[in-house]
């Protein structure tokens, strides 16, 4: 089997809508940790290899350790339904640069429902930015609600886009049932230090076997009322319908 435990890194996915700062966050992590950890990066590109080129030119990591995967017209397929090309790329990187501590995998910028399969990554960060609007965190979605970490990025821009960062962070925490939220700006050293500490904590938990990969899911878990009092469930796929007897009990997906 190509996957031998001896070379297995911590695989950390970075997802989030287009332009929220995924590549920049990877550059920030590399800058903060490349002295003490052996890192590798996989980018998932939709149309160009721009992300890989940006990261190579940022000079934060040996360019050879940054690889681009082509995802065709389906960036979400490549990180979730058919992860073959990404798995091959990660396994190649882990073999060529053994031993790596962490491989960072950037998803192609997609929409709010795109999350990584837990068969590809051990943990994932979902990135929003203040420029997308203060309401986005409240709108929820699987990545916002259940990624291992939600980053509210570019806080330095908040005054210019009329967003109150503490409110946005509080909304995000509420959407996540108290899960971790980090307000980040690459210009705010304290927030970068928090990000660095989070990655190191995750790596320690991963190595000690405490961290178990979770699937944020393609949809939010939701409540179905029925005669027995209802049940909370999550859907295994994103495009089905189900009927609910009684007009007051229907909901749309």
């Amino acid at each position: 089997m190509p996957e031998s435990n001896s070379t297995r890194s911590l695989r950390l996915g970075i997802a989030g809508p287009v332009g929220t700062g995924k590549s920049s966050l990877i550059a920030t992590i590399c800058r903060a940790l490349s002295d003490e950890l052996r890192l590798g990066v996989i980018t998932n590109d939709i149309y160009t290899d721009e992300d890989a080129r940006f990261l190579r030119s940022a000079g934060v990591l040996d360019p050879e350790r940054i690889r681009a995967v082509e995802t065709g017209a389906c960036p979400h397929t490549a990180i979730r339904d058919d992860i073959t090309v990404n798995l091959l790329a990660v396994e190649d990187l882990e073999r060529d640069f053994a031993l790596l501590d962490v491989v960072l995998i950037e998803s192609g910028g997609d929409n709010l429902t795109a999350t990584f399969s837990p068969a590809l990554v051990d943990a994932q960060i979902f990135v929003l930015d203040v420029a997308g609007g203060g309401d986005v965190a409240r709108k929820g979605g699987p990545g916002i609600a259940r990624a291992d970490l939600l980053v509210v990025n570019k806080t330095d821009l908040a005054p210019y886009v009329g967003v109150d960062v503490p409110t946005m962070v509080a909304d995000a925490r509420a959407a996540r049932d108290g899960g971790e939220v980090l307000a980040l700006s690459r210009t705010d050293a304290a927030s970068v230090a928090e990000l660095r500490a989070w990655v190191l904590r995750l790596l320690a938990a991963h190595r000690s076997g405490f961290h178990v990969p979770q699937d944020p899911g393609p949809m939010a878990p939701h409540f179905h009322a029925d005669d027995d009092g209802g049940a909370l469930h999550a859907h295994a796929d994103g495009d089905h319908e189900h009927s609910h007897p009684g007009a007051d009990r229907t909901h749309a997906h």
Partner: protein
Amino acid sequence: MPTIVTRIPASATLVMMLADARLPVGGHVHSAGLEPALAAGMPANRVFDYLLGRAHSVSLVEAGTAVVARHVALPATADSVAAGLAAVESAWAARTPSRALREVSRSLGRGYLRLGTRLWPGHPGIDACSAAPSPLSRPVVLGAIAAAANLDAESLVRLVIYDDAQTVAAALLKLAPIDPAIPAGWVLRACGEVDHLVAAIAALTSPDAIPASGAPQTEEWAESHSLTTQRLFRA
């Protein structure tokens, strides 16, 4: 861990699974040359001709390669299989002059092999592919999978021809969308046009006998496509 396949499903079932776009081998990044062709100026209203052309040319090379690889991987031990598959791989490479196309096919072959090693571990054909010094092309790996899975040769030929046509049809809906029923009909027609050739190709056993009916223009298109950055599909 995926379940190892022990009891053998019917060829009809295998062929459905292997032809299914949901097969986890990374096929969704390919357009069977359609994006390069359209980018090079082939009009979108010629796609049916393009499909027919492929069915009569590159599809037969691919199908012949897969059939001979299957034959070589059938009864033998891993050692003899390795030499046999290497000969099939060279025969295929000689019929696929574009380096870009060879690379793309070999990366797709790795996706198939990843699946093959999980579903049919220990089969001499699969083991020989895994032990090859460099990745083998998609038709060679597919042939080894056919041997491991007990897929008959005629089904394998039809699979290769159908898969190529359906890849073009699916990519067309992304690149130059039309009523999706139209390319679905083209796929059936193209497969029907070459069905009389299936038995002869399925009977091939020697690398030398693999059809050499390449399509130089698609090779050239693939080469220029590999140098562009603004592309949706790898090839």
